[in-house]
């Protein structure tokens, strides 16, 4: 009897898995042992950090791949031939070099060295992983780093080891307490710091969006690893800045001068089309980010503030989009009327709000996860209704195509714009419109959150029965959350319809609701900048990972899992919520999150006391 063909493959697969597990376990054991051994030896920080840093610097100069790939040389000609010109270090090798130098220097400077080393170590490991795994996949296996004649491209492996060593050095003694310096600075200086920080942020964002684009405007074959390398480097840099308490200071500053910083942020956002990222392509993505951000902020009212889980939220965006499509004068619409956009947007918001109130009405009786499934049901009913052209309003499977662009003062919004001698990409007017809209929505949200209604929502989220006992009309308050949230989504939907010019039912699937919810949770529930950041991440990441092709959805899932594993409270948690979590202490909140600094004017203390 012959052995069926599956068994040998399975055996080999299990063997690989066993080896991988063994390696991981061994590394973990080594990590724990070294951490234990180093715990009371702060003096070991310098030698270990220097060793790691030197190794990283060397790794930057070593070859990373052994041959020239068919798709073109791996970034920066990191092949064996590289030794012809060892000082022309660019790209990810430059990042490795820089991180290595900082790792060597940090222990000798008056800085929280262990925190810095930890950030750098993790950054190095990420750089090493990206630029080892990618050549392996793209170059067709281990041959990419080991040549037939026994030559070996050590760059990636050396970087991984260097990152490990640097991260280990952070274990020499306890981590420094996170500094909370919050000096009183003159108003003008604070303004200057904020302006500079936001401009730097704008440039970094543009850099990131533009990463992997060659000077001639074409996408580099290796855009994915180039982008991920940049991301790793920026992550390490941010971690190091955080170690100084700089980020905390900046947050405190921008919260103290809120109006000013929102203004600067809006101006910076509007300046994006003038940077390298100002292409038609990125304008389209940016408008989508804006639409999703506005919707996510609406969802944030429902989920983040009122604590009502909604799994069908995309329906409100869809309702807004279909309303706008029907009043746009498009040939396929049911109404054949064309109203001015502002009026249409208002109608879209109101209709979506009414549907929001309808969807929210079961909240009077249904609670918790049961409510989640009710909202999911509403979302699916909406999608089916749209798919089968209910009332002739949705165009069914044919969608509503050819929606005319917004036209104000004779200016077509989808055409490129020329200011003086600068030619801005097409879609830039939509970008301006959606940015203004997002800013407006952010202001609305911020004011609502600190209002009587906002506090009522938070009370309902924390304990509905107690809220009711305190005299809050919980039913009205909950329906109001749905109503206002849905209005914001409807407003965004109106812009969405005109920008995409086609509204089709399959833009509003369950996975889109999931994306919105993920944006809110990734950003941090109840946090305004968090929702925007979350939406931006979830829409931009898949675009930047395009050359992982098939695997990008896999990595998207992996990213969700990993972020939730290490930051379950979200990337930019809401200050008040952080304070609330701190009371519970044991709830898996890192210790450093516990000392929430009070702003000097005592705003946090007040908010909690209110």
């Amino acid at each position, binding site marked *: 009897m012959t052995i069926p063909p599956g068994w040998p493959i399975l055996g080999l697969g299990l063997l690989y898995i066993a080896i991988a597990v063994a390696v991981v376990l061994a590394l973990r054991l080594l990590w724990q042992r070294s951490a234990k051994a180093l715990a009371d030896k702060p003096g070991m920080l310098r030698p270990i950090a220097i060793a790691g840093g030197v190794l990283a610097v060397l790794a930057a100069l070593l070859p990373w791949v052994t041959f020239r790939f068919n798709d073109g040389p791996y970034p920066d000609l990191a092949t064996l031939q590289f030794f012809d010109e060892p000082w022309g270090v660019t790209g990810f090798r430059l990042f490795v070099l820089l991180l290595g130098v900082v790792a060597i220097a940090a222990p000798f400077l008056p800085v929280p060295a262990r925190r810095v080393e930890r950030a750098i170590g993790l950054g190095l490991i990420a750089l090493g992983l990206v630029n080892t795994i990618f050549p392996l996949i793209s170059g067709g296996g281990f041959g990419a780093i080991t040549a037939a004649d026994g030559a070996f491209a050590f760059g990636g492996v050396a970087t991984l080891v260097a990152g490990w060593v640097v991260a280990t050095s952070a274990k020499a003694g306890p981590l420094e307490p996170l500094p909370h310096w919050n000096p009183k600075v003159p108003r003008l200086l604070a303004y200057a710091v904020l302006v500079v920080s936001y401009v730097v942020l704008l440039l970094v964002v543009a850099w990131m969006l533009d990463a992997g684009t060659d000077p001639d405007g074409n996408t580099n074959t290796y855009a994915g690893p180039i982008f991920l390398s940049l991301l790793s480097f920026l992550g390490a840099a941010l971690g190091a800045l955080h170690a100084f308490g700089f980020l905390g200071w900046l947050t405190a500053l921008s919260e103290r001068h809120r109006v000013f910083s929102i203004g600067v942020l809006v101006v910076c956002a509007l300046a994006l089309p003038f940077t390298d990222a100002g292409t038609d392509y990125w304008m389209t993505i940016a408008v989508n980010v804006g639409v999703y951000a506005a919707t996510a902020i609406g969802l944030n009212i429902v989920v983040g503030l009122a604590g009502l889980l909604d799994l069908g939220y995309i329906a409100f965006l869809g309702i807004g989009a279909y309303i706008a499509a029907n009043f746009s004068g498009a040939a396929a619409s049911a109404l054949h009327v064309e109203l001015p956009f502002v009026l249409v947007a208002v109608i879209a918001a109101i209709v979506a709000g009414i549907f929001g109130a309808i969807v929210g009405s079961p909240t009077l009786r249904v609670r918790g996860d049961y409510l989640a499934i009710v909202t999911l*049901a509403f979302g699916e009913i909406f999608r089916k209704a749209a798919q089968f052209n209910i009332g002739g309003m949705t165009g069914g499977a044919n969608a509503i195509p050819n929606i005319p662009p917004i036209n104000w003062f004779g200016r077509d919004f989808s055409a490129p714009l020329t200011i003086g001698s600068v030619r801005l990409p097409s879609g830039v007017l939509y970008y301006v419109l959606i940015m203004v809209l997002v800013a407006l929505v952010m202001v609305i949200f911020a004011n609502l959150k600190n209002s009587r209604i906002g506090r009522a929502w938070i009370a309902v989220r924390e304990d509905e029965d107690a809220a009711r006992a305190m005299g809050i009309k919980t039913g009205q308050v909950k329906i109001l959350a749905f109503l206002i949230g849905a209005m914001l989504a409807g407003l965004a939907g109106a812009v969405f319809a005109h920008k995409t010019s086609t509204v089709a039912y399959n833009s509003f699937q*369950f996975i889109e609701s999931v994306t919105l919810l993920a944006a809110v949770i990734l950003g941090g529930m109840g946090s305004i900048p968090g929702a925007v950041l979350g939406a931006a991440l979830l829409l931009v990441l898949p675009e930047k990972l395009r050359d992982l092709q098939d695997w990008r959805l896999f990595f998207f899932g992996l990213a969700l899992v990993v972020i939730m594993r290490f930051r379950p*409270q979200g990337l930019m948690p809401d200050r008040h919520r952080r304070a609330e979590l701190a009371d519970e202490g044991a709830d898996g909140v890192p210790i450093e999150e516990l000392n929430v600094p009070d702003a000097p004017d005592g705003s946090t203390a007040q908010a909690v006391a209110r």
Partner: protein
Amino acid sequence: MATLLQQLASGLVLGALIALIALGYTMVYGIIQLINFAHGEVFMVSIFAAAATYKWFIPESWENTWQIALPCMLVGAVLVAVVLAVLMERFAYRPLRNAPRLAPLITALGVSQMLKEIVRLNYPDAKSAINVPRAFIDEPIIITVPGGTVVLQATSVLLIAVSIVGAVILQLYVSRSRMGRAMRATAQDPDTAKLMGVNPNRTIVFTFALGGLLAAVAGVLYGIHLNTVDTEVGFLYGIFAFTAAVLGGVGSIKGAVIGGFIIGVVKTLGGQLLPGGTGYDVVWVFILLILVLVFRPQGLFGEPERVRA
């Protein structure tokens, strides 16, 4: 009459399938209040595992004897599904046990996406639908009723029988056995259960494994009944199964089974008899769900949500 009965039968078959998957949802939710969105993907993976077992892991001489092939497929599917469910619990959900409530939900969605992509990209030809062999009695059962005949596939009967028998066994197990008592204790209060000598971690892992086992059984039956599978079925049936669990009252075994049958029948009959045709069949299911939940917020057999101190 005959047509109606025929449709009722296919509704019951669909219901039996949904019920088997819903059991996994309901048990996991009952014990740690987690909507395990990835459970549907465990079901999907187990179908692929069954197909792979048949195709590559048993000698050709066994393939034509379903009495041997079917148990082999079952073993393969159950092994894969249980290992998957346990790994999922250990590495994705356990680290988040004390995290804010919605964090594990996002993890579950991420895991679900990963599983789907892993299968789609690595299983040969899984980018479109693949075939699953019909490893069961081939002759249909024909029942004569007034006005015609009702044709039942043998697998249909098997599906309905297995789901009912399985649910009864599970109910007995949870209410009578030592482990079942530990499960109920952990669901009520993990800390007190710990004081009473129950190991909550082991109990939770066991619950996940049990859910995986049921999903695998459902997967094999799905495979031999419909003979085709693609990577989207996990999501589709996952949503239905979760709806069934909620309809019946999450945490209740009886509720999950009855909810599953109700959904199967409403979907099939609604698509045939109500206006709008099969396109709207899902809509009737969800409208029924909303109505039930509005008038009975805890589901048909669930306990009213207690106020937690």
